């Protein structure tokens, strides 16, 4: 009986450390949906699609940068997650295709868009969203090996007309 208990204890400790690391430091996730193509590619099931390395550090003090690819909780469907690119932060004045007026991002909010503009549902549909929804930054694709590499932080040019207090790097 002794060894089973020891195994259970070791498994529980391992799981606990794993959860803590995954919550606070780094974790892996499988891409779903086509809203970030061609940057990130999903498969038809949970067994296919890019495997992403997520950095949880920016989620602690919300030190995300414009251009980062971020993972966030969906504002309208809280049980789902979204992967989008952070385009603008609070205070920024933003040009939105299809709209004549500029949009100013209110305090505490941000503007996110999917790279695949044709299919992505994002801030262009639902407006600025609270930055507190952002939980992680996608740093790399780790699988499949042909697509292994860094996910670059790229800010599309010409979108931000004036910025808030945070300078553009």
């Amino acid at each position: 009986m002794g060894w089973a208990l020891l195994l259970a204890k070791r498994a529980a400790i391992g799981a606990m450390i794993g959860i803590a690391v995954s919550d606070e430091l780094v974790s892996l996730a499988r891409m779903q949906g086509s809203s970030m193509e061609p940057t990130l590619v999903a498969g038809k099931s949970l067994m296919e699609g890019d495997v992403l390395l997520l950095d949880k550090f920016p989620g602690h003090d919300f030190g995300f940068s414009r251009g980062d690819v971020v993972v966030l909780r969906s504002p309208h469907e809280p049980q789902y997650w979204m992967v989008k690119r952070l385009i603008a932060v609070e205070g920024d004045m933003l040009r939105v295709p299809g709209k004549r007026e500029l949009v100013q991002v209110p305090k505490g909010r941000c503007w996110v868009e999917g790279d695949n503009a044709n299919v992505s549902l994002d801030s262009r549909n639902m407006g600025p969203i609270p930055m507190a929804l952002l939980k992680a930054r996608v740093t790399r694709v780790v699988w499949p090996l042909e697509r292994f590499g860094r996910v670059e932080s790229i800010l599309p040019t010409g979108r931000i007309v004036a910025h808030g207090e945070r300078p553009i790097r």
Partner: protein
Amino acid sequence: MLWKSLSDVAGRGAAIVQCVCFMDVFSNHVLQIQQCIGPSMLPTFNIRGDILVTERLSVKLGKIRVGDVVMARSPSDPRMVVCKRILGLEGDTITVASDKGGSTKVKIPKGHVWLQGDNFHKSRDSREYGPVPSALLQGRVFYRIWPPQGWGFVGRIPSQSV
């Protein structure tokens, strides 16, 4: 001799790491102890800071009800956690009294809730920042452990001050 000391240190280090991980996982996923400071939840909670126990499960399971007191990340400042009462769930229509008399009706969109402090006059809440995505809710406040005369469950209606 040196090897024994190193393995002692490693043993203690491992114990500390396990402790920190346990506290992190427990407070993020089970129970958290937090303080609610400020006038926005008077008379239910005091200005100078009541100490509350928040449970994480109800939010994770989507079992939040109107009247629950919750901790949530503020939509206007991601670094701030606010303590408010849920006055409406998705699909509900809230009637907001405006300062100049009269009122407006707000329908709460899918996935959102209406947060309001018990202190009608001194609370910044959904009346200012609109319905809040329920993904911002951290947990349900269910017990108060300070001040001592306020020990007890936190109910779904505003209570008298202690």
